[in-house]
């Protein structure tokens, strides 16, 4: 057992209101430099929708992630042979149009325009060429199913839905949607790291954050095509790739990353998970339907004395193990099993989990009253307006069982609380539902607390980073302490 620690995340989609505060917080801190205009290390997508870049989940086109061939897994986009053949032209690079051409507006014209019969306007200008452009798309073109119906209809997760289900999904005035905030998943089996010919990408041993060394990056852009979540971006100005760094300077100093900190809906949870690094390869080879269980089995119980002992042997500090015991992520993922990894079928073993959203309650209109009491306990999960198949494509590798489990448990907790506070459901019935959803009363209370009443410190259990220990591998911490802050700041530049 090779125990490592990983700063992991849970996004509770049932609480996300799609306000984009996270995206803006991130943009203002990290990606408002030249060349990063189009990058959204954090973005929020409307589902159903095509996301950013357009249809990023369509791996037939984008060739991201791993695929299982002849019993072993290999990158879809490249391998040792192909990387040499395609060294001067990466054939699977998304084009600028599939992101969008970043633009600003010609505000000066509002002040400097010659006097004329019309009001002056600020025309859009490309931030790449500086010319006037006709804006055709943007990072949130289909936000709230705006833009055009074409985008939502082309969501790759609609695969396998019946014609009728699709009609229901898009019926006027019954339209339904939810939001999917996305950052880098800081995967356990990152395709970006595997693909880099320069070895510029690495996963930090101490906390699992995946980073790109700006001095080593040689602009091959293999990571851009290899990442199935399209979360590495190429900075066209510095000629280096960049990605979400999970605000490591904040995490190291005990603060939550900016997007977590600013989240209005308090949907984000952050905490450390201990995992067994020796078993990653074995789990990445499992068949699709066993991937979620396998992935979950990688996460180790920080209360297990064997694990604690192994962690100590692997150099994981006791304070990190202690932090793992309080991790909200551990509860969602391992204890309650209601948080699921996105698109586990890409086999990158993402360490960002999502609690699948509840659809609006299915209702029937009887004259003037809306009837939402069901005969069967969970009928509105099976017949939810967002079809289970759709959620299963997103969070279950196409298999519904795990998604149904998570939704049932959430619904049971909701009904249980309803019995306690509203009283239109009897406690007996609520307890029956809890039992059917594999949930105890204590667990329901805990889920309710961490979902609805969670404080800042409950949501973000940030492990001490022990930089001094991480640095010890490279240099003497005392020397580092004395000389840090001296030197020259050299930003990344094109070339070697």
């Amino acid at each position, binding site marked *: 057992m090779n125990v490592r620690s990983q700063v992991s995340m849970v996004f509770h989609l049932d609480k996300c209101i799609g306000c984009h505060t996270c995206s803006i917080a991130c943009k203002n801190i990290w990606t408002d430099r030249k060349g990063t205009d189009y990058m959204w290390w954090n973005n929020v997508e409307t589902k159903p929708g*095509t996301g950013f*870049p*357009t*249809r990023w989940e*369509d791996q037939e*086109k*984008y*060739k991201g992630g791993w695929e299982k061939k002849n019993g072993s897994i290999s990158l879809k986009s490249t391998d040792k042979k192909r990387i040499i053949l395609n060294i001067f032209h990466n*054939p*699977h*690079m*998304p*084009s600028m*149009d*599939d992101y969008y051409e970043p633009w600003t507006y010609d505000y000066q014209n509002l002040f400097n325009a010659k006097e004329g019969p019309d009001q002056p306007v600020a025309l859009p200008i490309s931030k790449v060429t500086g010319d006037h452009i006709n804006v*055709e*798309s943007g990072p949130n073109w289909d936000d709230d199913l705006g833009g*055009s119906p*074409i*985008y939502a*209809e*082309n*969501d*790759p*997760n*609609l*695969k*396998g*839905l*019946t*014609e009728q289900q699709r009609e229901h999904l898009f019926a006027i005035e019954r339209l339904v949607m939810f939001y999917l905030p996305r950052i880098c998943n800081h995967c356990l089996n990152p395709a970006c790291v595997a693909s880099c010919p320069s070895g510029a990408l690495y996963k930090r041993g101490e906390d699992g954050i995946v980073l790109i060394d700006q001095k080593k990056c040689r602009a091959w852009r293999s990571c851009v*095509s290899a990442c199935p979540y399209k979360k590495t971006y190429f900075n066209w100005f510095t000629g280096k790739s960049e990605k979400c760094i999970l605000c490591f300077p904040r995490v190291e100093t005990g603060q939550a990353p900016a997007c977590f900190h600013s989240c209005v809906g308090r949907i984000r949870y952050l905490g450390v998970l201990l995992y067994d690094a020796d078993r990653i390869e074995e789990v990445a080879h499992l068949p699709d339907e066993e991937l979620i269980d396998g992935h979950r089995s990688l996460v180790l119980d920080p209360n297990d004395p064997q694990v604690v002992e192994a962690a100590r042997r692997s150099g994981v500090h006791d304070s990190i193990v202690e932090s793992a015991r309080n991790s909200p992520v551990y509860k969602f993922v391992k204890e309650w099993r209601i948080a699921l990894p996105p698109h586990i079928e890409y086999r990158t073993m993402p360490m960002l989990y999502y609690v699948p959203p509840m659809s609006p309650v299915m209702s029937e209109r009887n004259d003037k009253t809306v009837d939402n009491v069901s005969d069967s306990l969970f009928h509105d999960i099976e017949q939810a307006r967002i079809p289970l198949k759709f959620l299963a494509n997103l969070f279950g590798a196409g298999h519904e069982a795990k998604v149904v489990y998570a939704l049932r448990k959430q619904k049971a907790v909701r009904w249980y609380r309803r019995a306690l506070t509203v009283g239109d459901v009897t406690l007996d019935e609520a307890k029956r539902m809890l039992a059917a959803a594999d949930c105890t009363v204590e667990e329901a209370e805990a889920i309710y607390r961490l979902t609805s009443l969670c404080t800042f410190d409950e949501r973000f259990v940030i492990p001490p980073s022990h930089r001094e220990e991480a640095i010890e591998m490279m240099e003497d911490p005392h020397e580092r302490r004395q000389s840090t802050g001296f030197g020259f700041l050299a930003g990344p530049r094109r070339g070697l």
Partner: protein
Amino acid sequence: MQMYRVARRLSEVWRVRWSWAIGTALVCAAPPVAVGQETAAFFKQNCYSCHTIGGGRLVGPDLKSVSQRKDREWLVRFILNPQAMMDRGDPYAMRILEESRGVVMAQIAGLTRDRANLLLDLIEAESALEKSQFEGIKFSDRPFTELDVETGERIFNGLTRLSNGGPPCISCHTVRGLGLLGGGRLGVDLTKVSERVGGRKPLSAWLVSPATTTMQPVFKSYPMEPEEILSLVAFFENSAKQVGDDDSVAPLTFFLLGLMGMVLVLGLFDALWKNRFRAVRRPLVAGGEMRTEV
């Protein structure tokens, strides 16, 4: 250790000095006969392909009694740089040019004023003889056959290797009517070469030891055999006859071939990378036909 190295170095320097000194002494003491032989060899190597002494004109004039035609100083100047004399418009030089149908005498590498004088001495001495050793090489004058022409073409194209290992003509020269791409463009077009140099005899003589700066070093060690020369001359005469005055070489063919090649390579690239990423968003918005399958 250091001392030893210095000593060794000194002894090396002395060795080199000694060998140099002995060599110089030997050269100075060489008998005049040796110098005469060397000049004759030089003549054979560099002049004989175009000139005879008492054997009639080849490409260039017969050199018998040349010193009676012009004074020694003029001749030396001409030998050292024929082109300069022509450029200056010297009337006698112009006459020579006219007689040789525009073929300018090549400037011979390694020629000094002294050597030119030695050469003229040799020519004078040979002219005095009744029968000079440089009267001209005897070539068979039997009429050419179809087979000669064919063999010549094979030699030119390199399909039959030259027996002494010389490179095939086609690597530098071309002849019209060779096929799509013709031969090399480094050397001159040899289509009308037999007319230019004045027929069978001069051309044969030229091929015995080609005297241009480019060909001489190449063929010095790999001379051609008389039968090969015969076949090649047959081929050149035939090609001069075959091709009329049509002067359209194949630059257009060459260009079109290049274009075709480019199209083919681009097509190949397109096929090899047929699974490359193409636009996603634009076709999606334009057609909407990508709709995720049921």
